[in-house]
């Protein structure tokens, strides 16, 4: 196991792994935590609680680093993000409180199945640039959620928002998984906005990245006070993820919705299978 390596080699391996996880994470709208935890535990033999502690810190770095780029590009919908953060942060607290009473294996299994099921509509609609015929619902009108985003050629694309209560509930569940597992839960956040509220993929992906940092901050504080954030692990992880995320976000701004979806779907399935395996093996 890599934890017996000398510290120099170990830190270098962690840095390289984090760089890769950050790059893929930023493109897919994930925090990178779901990629980092298996790398650190299965790949490098790190205790899962410390892996979660380091990954939740890196999730803040990814979100903040990538979000800074997207906000300037006017892809992120700040009102949708802020409104839904009420749900994700409440969920994070719920997750942290019930963490001591719930069997993690059962939860891994449940979420593995939910993610696999959720991949289906994404595969069927694969290639769709923009959801068609969406009408604002009551919440979207009163919370002023509809907006527009600029295409790479500068033209503004207007979009409306539907099924807001469904999105809000899925966001609450995303918060619970974040508090429980120490991940950013970017997968569920993108699903809530893309499949639930039918937002354009690029808006879902960037708004998710923007929200992940705040959700992760709620859980990171808890892991920090529990003593599971080791600076010598968190430092190379955060630095590597930051570098990877910066490269990934440059790539995203120029990419089409179809390309993002093609990266996101295989990743979603891989994460789902990983969760199922962990649920079965314990």
């Amino acid at each position, binding site marked *: 196991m890599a*934890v*017996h390596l000398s510290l120099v080699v170990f830190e270098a391996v962690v840095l390289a792994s984090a760089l890769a996880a950050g790059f893929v994470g930023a493109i897919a709208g994930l925090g990178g935590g779901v990629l980092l935890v298996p790398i650190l535990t299965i790949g490098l033999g790190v205790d899962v609680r410390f892996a979660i502690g380091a990954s939740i*810190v890196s999730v803040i770095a990814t*979100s903040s680093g990538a979000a800074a780029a997207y906000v300037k590009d006017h892809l992120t919908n*700040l*009102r949708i993000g802020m409104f839904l953060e009420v749900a994700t942060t409440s969920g994070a607290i719920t997750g942290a409180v019930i963490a001591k009473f719930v069997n993690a294996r059962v939860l891994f299994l449940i979420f593995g199945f939910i993610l696999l099921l959720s991949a289906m509509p994404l595969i069927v609609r694969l290639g769709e640039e923009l959801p068609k015929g969406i009408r604002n619902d009551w919440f979207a009108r009163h919370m002023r959620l509809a907006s527009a985003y600029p295409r790479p050629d500068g033209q503004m694309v207007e979009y409306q928002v539907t099924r807001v209560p469904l999105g809000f509930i899925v966001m609450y569940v995303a918060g619970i998984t974040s508090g429980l597992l120490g991940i950013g839960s970017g997968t569920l956040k993108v699903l809530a906005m893309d499949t639930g509220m039918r937002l354009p993929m690029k808006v879902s992906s960037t708004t998710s990245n923007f929200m992940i940092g705040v959700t992760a901050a709620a859980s990171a504080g808890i892991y*920090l006070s529990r003593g599971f954030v080791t600076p010598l692990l968190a430092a190379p992880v955060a630095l590597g993820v930051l570098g990877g995320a910066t490269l990934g976000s440059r790539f995203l701004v120029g990419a089409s919705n179809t390309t993002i979806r093609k990266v996101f779907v295989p990743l979603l399935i891989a994460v789902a299978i990983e969760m199922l395996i962990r649920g079965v093996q314990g």
Partner: protein
Amino acid sequence: MKAEPATPRGPNFSILISLVLLVGVSLAALILAVGLVIFFAHGGANEPASSMFSASPHSLLGVVRRAMSGTLQGDPQALLGLGVLVLLATPVLRVAASIALFLAEKDWLYTVVTLIVLGILLYSIFFIH
């Protein structure tokens, strides 16, 4: 129906939020990089990597105090802890900045929404262990 901009009053709002995020993340990255270099320069590199894993629970204020005093005594691991704390503070400051900006917009609805988010966030960070 006319679509509203995704960020209030166009570029000003989003540039300030980008700035909070960029400064926080850059400062944290700088502290972490410097801390790592100092750690290896002090010969910490010869230890096995497994030596770093031992949990010692503290309240968040205790974590802040230890990072501060350790850094002042020249402990590179405390400096790394300080970098982690700066990273943790960045999203909190981003939410706080959003409150000020929604207030300036006289957008009372989203001022309240953002205040709720900040309250939940601070409660979870300081009161749940």
